[in-house]
């Protein structure tokens, strides 16, 4: 991170109103995050959740702002030494839903990406099909998406941003 630049506290408001297809287009333009850049604790914000694409944009923005409040126990992610975990009830709260990291190419758009693979023995079976991808939207602003692996392929579930938790 460039320390000369101001810290980002919130993701840009217009991201929260965007549909999955629009964020796919944005995601395809971005450069990857390296595992080293990702090290640390990150505050998460959900958006473009599968099944909510019908919401008018202003309502979608409101809904995802609501999901940033303590009503939603998911607070973000932490990354360290080639792996990471989801954080609940606080950015440094309990870890549940772990993943290992790999710098690779996205099977979706073929561009470099930081790959979050949940298919590891520590995870309960129902979490193992999750595959995350992360890229850099700005200095200290990561755009990531969560996909669901089935036999027929990868299906987009949602997008989220990560900002440093300080």
């Amino acid at each position, binding site marked *: 991170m*460039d320390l*000369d*630049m*101001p810290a*980002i506290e919130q993701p*840009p*408001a*217009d991201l929260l109103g*965007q*549909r999955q297809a*629009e964020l796919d*287009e*944005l995601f*395809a*333009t*971005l*450069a*990857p995050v390296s595992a080293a850049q990702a090290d640390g604790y990150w505050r998460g914000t959900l958006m473009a959740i599968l099944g909510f694409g019908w919401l008018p944009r202003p309502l979608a923005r409101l809904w995802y702002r609501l999901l940033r409040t303590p009503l939603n126990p998911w607070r973000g992610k932490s990354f360290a030494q080639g792996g990471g975990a989801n954080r609940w009830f606080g950015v440094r709260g309990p870890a549940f839903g772990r993943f290992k990291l790999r710098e690779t190419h996205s099977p979706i758009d073929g*561009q*470099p990406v930081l790959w979050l693979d949940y298919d590891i023995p520590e995870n309960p079976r129902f979490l193992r099909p999750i595959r995350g991808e992360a*890229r850099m*939207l*700005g*200095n*200290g*602003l990561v755009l990531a998406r969560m996909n669901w692996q089935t036999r027929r392929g990868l299906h987009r579930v949602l997008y989220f941003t990560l900002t440093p938790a300080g």
Partner: protein
Amino acid sequence: MNTDVIVVGSGFGGAFAAERLIASGLRVTLLERGPWRDTQPMRAAGVWPRSPLPYGRNFYRQVLRSVAMPGLGARRLRTNAHGLFDLHLAPALSVVCSSGVGGGSHVYSAMNLRPAVPDYWAARADGIDPERMEHYSAAAIARMGARPPDAEVPNFVGTRLRQDALLQAEATLEQPAMGYRFDGGRYRDNSFFGSQDGSKITLDALILAPLLDRGLRVHDLHEVLSIGRGAGGWRVSVYDHRSRRYRHLTAPRVVLAAGTLNTLRLLFASRAQGALAALPALGLGIGGNGDVPAYWRCAVPEADFTEGTPCHGRFEIRGVDDGPNLTAYGLNGIDGVPMPGRLRARLKRDLVLVGMGADGANGIASWRGGRLRFHYSDSANPILARIYRAFDLIGHRSGRPVHFLRRWPLTVHPLGGARVSDDPLQGVVDGRGQVHGLPGLYVADAAALPAAPGAPPSMTIAAWASHVADGIGRPV
């Protein structure tokens, strides 16, 4: 998207830059937040779809695009994406600018001038050659086909003030060249609300529509929201008001020419998202070109000042030596504004006066809570007080009130904030218009101007944009 350069904005910066970039053989995509305007030249060019200028029953729906003012927070009140004017109202400095393919050329008063400040471009930054800049200015003025009005043009001050006891416009006073169709043009409805019949020369008709045949891609109603570095160069995030969807485009180079107000909004917003660099000089050097607009209730019997060129010309106060630069305008265009006939008849007899001059361009723009703020002090810019005194004198001697916003500067010529300088602590762009430390990102509009030109700035902006575009087209 296969494009070499994305240009943001289609006013004097964007249009002149696009023309030179296309001439260098580059593939250019131009993004403009407003629509193509429905004027006779655009109809003839077959450009579609078009949006009406504010006129008649369309007036109130089409006149305003957006307003930013204290109390609205980060949100701007957007009334209509097809609207013409964008207002930024604030006690320190209010700004009026416009929206639509062709940018400010629709609403401007058609004065095409070089800087009044001598040696304006001298010693500004490496890579700026004043002689070359003079060549660009001359080329831009010639491109606009600009020349001063003849004596026969209705309400031209050179003729009208010959016998005037208070004001004068002697032949020795240089009159502004105007980009206007003097042969065959109409002398009505050609000013602040646009020129439907094309009497005023606008950039959509003169430059942009003809460039479509040479490969220029123009996406109208595409509002750029942010820019940032991406995998393949620059990413530009856009809201398409027509299809109501977000788009994300990429190109190796991006030229910002959204006008001072909006180029600064874009730079600040993108920096706040961590998408640029620290840009320590962002916001420095804001100026209003010393603008002071006034309304003179001169009520000249039998006059119809709405006739004529958008600006009636430059004048002086008799007996005042070395006064500020003063120009006069009728309320040209009010024929298309729905209002009671008696009120219109009265307004036709009054004049708008504008004083301007080189202010210190010493204001600062900042970004707080997602909102652009200006800090600009009229006491730090004595040119404003000189103009206030000139207006007071006109009011006093004529016995007719001159209304203006004393201590509440309002400008139609905002400039600076991303100014040119070799020193990244003093300026945002270098002598080639490239943002310090961000290769491939350029500023080609009034935001990059290093100082107030003291005269209407469109041709100074066009010259700067030509210089920036030539630098991109012919890299060192």
